[in-house]
């Protein structure tokens, strides 16, 4: 395998645009920003297989912002749809009706509802069969397109449409976020990574690295969601950055199961800094500060990084 040359700065990112402006996505959509970054690396020769989620809104032909092709499947089955597309491309290449240079990258694009919940078995099947595809999960930590209901990706203590914080339950979501990274990793695919719209250089390098491998290449992107998180749309990147700086969103990759953290903050900020400006956590601050919950969240983050430190011997 030839030595990969990672890019160093944002200036090295391609100026090609494969995602045009003027989409029906919400202002300040973190997922859309990342999708733009992803498509810069993936290039024009991609076919996107999408299942119900916010990005459904991008497929309203002819008002689609894509240069590439698009297939829409039932919500539970985007990776299965990708299997069909991959098979069709392979057959065309084998029959000589498509040259290998004209081959397309098959990219599954879903939200966290499909990735963490209803589409998990379909993903598992594709991983087990070692399907050659990309999976981009735009994780805004709830079902955004239906009005921000709880999903398996919703973090502990977040308020959503179906985990309201009120008289009976002051916490919001009582369950912790599912560990999709580890669920995927247990299938031992060649490449898994987490990404952030605040770290495009890290993201581009990860996609470049992934490109070398045949098989499943999976990405989970923390996508700040202004309407759902109740945040200022102009601050989405700042929240994405805060998530990394507080250690809540760990930027990492796993090559054939071997985990490495790619961006480790020199000094971790307290989680409260990330939580305090988001409407979905406002109930933790008013009418009374719920110290126990802050403590619990901070402990979860600390425990995670302590384990990482002992495993990867990185300096915290």
């Amino acid at each position: 395998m030839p030595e990969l040359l990672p890019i160093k700065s944002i200036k090295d990112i391609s100026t090609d645009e494969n995602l045009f402006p003027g989409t029906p996505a919400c202002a300040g959509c973190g997922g859309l920003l990342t999708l733009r970054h992803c498509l810069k690396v993936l290039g024009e020769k991609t076919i996107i297989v999408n299942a119900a989620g916010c990005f459904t809104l991008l497929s309203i032909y002819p008002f689609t912002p894509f240069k590439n092709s698009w297939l829409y499947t039932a919500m539970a089955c985007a990776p299965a749809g990708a299997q069909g597309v991959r098979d069709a491309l392979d057959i065309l290449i084998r029959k000589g009706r498509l040259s290998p240079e004209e081959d397309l990258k098959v990219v599954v694009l879903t939200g966290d509802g499909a990735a963490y919940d209803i589409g998990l078995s379909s993903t598992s099947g594709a991983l087990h069969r070692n399907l050659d595809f990309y999976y981009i999960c735009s994780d805004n930590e709830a079902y955004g397109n239906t009005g921000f209901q709880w999903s398996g990706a919703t973090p502990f203590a977040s308020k959503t449409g179906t985990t309201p914080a009120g008289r009976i339950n002051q916490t919001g979501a009582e369950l912790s976020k599912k560990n999709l990274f580890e669920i995927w990793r247990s299938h031992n695919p060649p490449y898994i990574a987490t990404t952030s719209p605040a770290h495009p250089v890290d993201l581009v390098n990860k996609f470049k690295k992934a490109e070398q491998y045949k098989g499943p290449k999976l990405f989970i992107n923390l996508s700040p969601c202004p309407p759902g998180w109740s945040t200022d749309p102009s601050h989405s990147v700042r929240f994405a950055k805060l998530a990394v700086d507080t250690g809540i969103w760990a930027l990492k990759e796993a090559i054939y199961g071997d985990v490495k953290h790619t961006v480790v903050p020199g000094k971790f900020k307290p989680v409260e800094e990330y939580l305090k400006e988001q409407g979905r956590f406002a109930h933790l601050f008013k009418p009374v500060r719920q110290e126990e919950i802050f403590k619990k969240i901070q402990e979860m983050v600390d425990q995670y990084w302590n384990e990482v430190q002992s495993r990867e011997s990185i300096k915290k």
Partner: protein
Amino acid sequence: MKQLLTGNEAAAEAAIQAGCRYYYGYPITPQNELINYMSVRMPEVGGAFIQAESEIAAISMVHGSAAAGGRTMTSSSSPGISLKQEGISYLAGSELPCVIVNIQRGGPGLGDISASQADYFQAVKGGGHGDYHTIVLAPCSVQEMADLVYDAFDLADKYRIPVMILGDAQIGQLMEPLEFNKKQINNLPSKSWSLTGAEGRKRNIIKSFYPVKGELEVFNAHLQRKYKIIEEHEVRYEAINIHEADIILVAYGTSARICKEVVKKSQRFKFRVGMVRPITLWPFPKEIIRKISERVQCILTVEMSTGQMVEDVKLAVEGRCPVHFYGRTGGGVPTSLEIIRKIVEIVPDNRAANTLLQLAEVK
């Protein structure tokens, strides 16, 4: 006291008042108000609210809680109801009472999120695999949504059968004043069949699996006998001006609201339009339609589909009079003007109908 609520919220509140303590949902537009409402109200009444990981999981949670004898409900919209079909078939096969709310949206496939009535076939003909029916109730207002949800739970328990509320995006998201007035039903059978622990009694078995040759046929015959009883006793419809009418409109849900407007407008012109609004889509009110067909000029069925209920109307009419159809799809809602135009198209020589059309067009 009147309250102003959406149809979705009215369904949720009525379910709570009807004693539903187990609700399992999954987000899908246009029924999100229902699941959101339940997430607030269920904990208040000490019930179980779970947002499941899929529609199949949600209907199977309903299966479990129904087997334990609870009043249980799930809700979704068209694509989600498609996913639930296997579970609904199991519930029907296990003779378990439950309520399923379908707030229909456009299809097929992803379709759109606006009002539609294109799930009629799926709802009334069984939907899933096997010979079965669910009772299907079709509300046409927010008030009726609440009233029918009460009745749905009672009917489900009375006959040990899944009951579907077939609404649409319009009924689900429309806000109207309503009054919750639950009637007291006393003579419902006790759920002695439910799985509550067999201490001090013989064990109960709930299943839909009859692998021994001959058993399934016996069971199917039993189901059919039950369905026949329901067909004899539970048909409901609203009839307006059916005596004297020359032409009868048949419509349910949102379409029926518009047809009512046509009937009202026609009265001033001595143009005799009547209407039958099926409230139970299964069992279908075929008897009244058969009777009407013997004396009217024709019947016009209006739906937000390409023509589904019209087939049941034709089966009831059995060729006694012409049956016409007017339908819109893809978020299109029939207007009273369109319906009047269609009527004039059917009876071009009727002077009153033409006058009605002229006036409607001027407006």
